[in-house]
């Protein structure tokens, strides 16, 4: 911890490894993410970015290595554990249930209930009211909370997914390709949201294939190739060319 900003480090992965059968998906991956920063994670398809994210968000358990969050060692057994710790993930496929409404998706598996003895009934009114406050804070093309996700545009869906990730006092928000499926205008709006998250003090871990976006938004870039972390740069000290070189292996760290 020689880094003067060491105490700002929220997520600290150390030598994380994970093997699926004979496939070494992650090999001794170490990286950090700081509060109030957007940390980018880049690499080719199959480099292990999503697998690492899945370890951090409690879906996979690493075979070896440690993941420290907020200074404490973690041992997540489920996405719920990670969520309880303050890690929220916006998955690539958005992970929304299309046949449920916006508010039902926002509160999926964290429903507000009222207890009547042994019976717990959903407090629909409270959830709808809170959902309305959550989405109105987005200011992006606000969707009606009682409409089904099936009826929303791509940008609105992304907004709902981000809203779900940020609306519950999270510390770290992980975004897996948040703008891959969006048009130019919607991308700009989602980028605004990401910057706002950072400015509110969240740590953001951004996976992206869009180098312009990475250079524009992030403060730190980590590069992965074939399951290994092959490089890390402060965004201000690097160029798009150097990052591409690291990704393809043309530049050895």
């Amino acid at each position, binding site marked *: 911890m020689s880094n003067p900003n060491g105490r700002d480090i929220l997520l600290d992965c150390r030598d994380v490894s994970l093997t699926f059968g004979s496939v070494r998906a992650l090999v001794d991956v170490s990286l950090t993410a700081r509060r109030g920063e957007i940390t980018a994670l880049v690499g080719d398809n199959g480099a292990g970015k999503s697998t690492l994210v899945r370890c951090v968000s409690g*879906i996979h358990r690493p075979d070896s290595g440690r993941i420290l969050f907020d200074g404490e060692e973690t041992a997540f057994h489920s996405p719920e554990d990670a969520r309880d710790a303050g890690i929220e993930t916006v998955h690539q496929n*958005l*992970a929304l249930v299309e046949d*449920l409404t916006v508010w039902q998706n926002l509160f999926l598996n964290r429903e507000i209930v009222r207890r009547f003895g042994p019976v*717990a*009934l959903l407090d629909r009114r409270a959830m709808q009211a809170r959902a309305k406050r959550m989405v109105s804070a987005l200011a992006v093309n606000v969707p009606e909370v*009682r409409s*089904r996700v099936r*009826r929303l545009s791509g940008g609105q869906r992304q907004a709902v997914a981000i809203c779900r990730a940020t609306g519950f006092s999270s510390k770290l928000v992980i975004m897996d390709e948040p703008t891959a499926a969006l048009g130019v205008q919607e991308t700009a709006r989602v980028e605004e949201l990401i910057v706002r998250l950072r400015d509110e003090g969240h740590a953001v871990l951004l996976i992206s294939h869009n180098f312009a976006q990475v250079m524009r938004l992030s403060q730190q870039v980590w590069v992965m190739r074939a399951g290994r972390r092959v490089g890390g740069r402060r965004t201000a000290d690097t160029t798009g060319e150097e990052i591409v070189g690291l990704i393809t292996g043309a530049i050895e760290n």
Partner: protein
Amino acid sequence: MTNHSIRRPGRPYTGAGLLGAVGRARHLGLVLALALLALVGLVTVPETFATTSNVVTVLALAATIGVITVGMTFVIIGGGIDLSVGAVMALASVWATTLATQSYGPMVMVICAVLVGTGAGLLSGFLISYGRMVPFIATLAMLVAARGLAERMSDRRTQLVQPGNSALVDLSSGRVLGLPPIVFVFAAVVVAGWVVLNRTTFGRRTYAVGGNPEAAKLAGIDVRRHTMLLYGLSGLCCGIAAVIIMARTTTGSSTHGDLYELDAIAAVIIGGTLLTGGRGTIGGSILGLLIFTLITNLFILNGLNTSDQLIAKGLIIVIAVLLQRRSLRSRT
């Protein structure tokens, strides 16, 4: 994506309470079909159709499959199917009417039927969720095996409810507010099913697991456990249905409930629940079931051929699915 201009806002919200009117409109077609059938009854057999005894007959007939239909609705919304319901009900009725069980009295018979049903359901659910078997296959195996076990236990004989346990039969022959108690059992199961599906986390999870299992998993829902519980719930309903059929027929038999699975699935589909999961309502299923029951009743009252009755039911399933597909297209 979809064209915004053809969207009809405010139509199909999942069970939104304050949009009760909208919810009713969604089932309007089913209610109209039911009214049409009632009209046919009033015109063709005016002297027998609108009598108290006929209403009681229809409701008592609907009660058995109705209870099963509630469980089936949960399973299908959750993305599965349960072919074993009729056989599991038969097994529960046989197990509850063995002389050994009967010696403990009617209360134990009821508990036995419910436990056997739930146990069989959980076993199917276990094979499907943890054994990764296709629901169609696992419950088909349960169908065959449960019927076989019921035949073994009863020696293929019809087992009578003993005179000492006639309290059980009173559930059908007795009258509370002019109706047999089994009708109230049916109503209670429907109401309980509706509350669980629409007002509890269990119900919400059922929609999520059927609609997008991957998303449900990422949200932290234990999809396997929930799937198993859904089949357990279906089994529980079969156990309750077994109590109703023992009361109605005063017997337990391995032949009870033959092809009930088809009637229950048909009722659920006619009621607007998607076979692919994620969408559906209890109310729709019950309306679908009442339509089916009323058709049976009309054919019997008019002295018509039961084979024609089957043809009519087949046609109704086809029409219902075609209409459903049209309304789906306008929704999405």
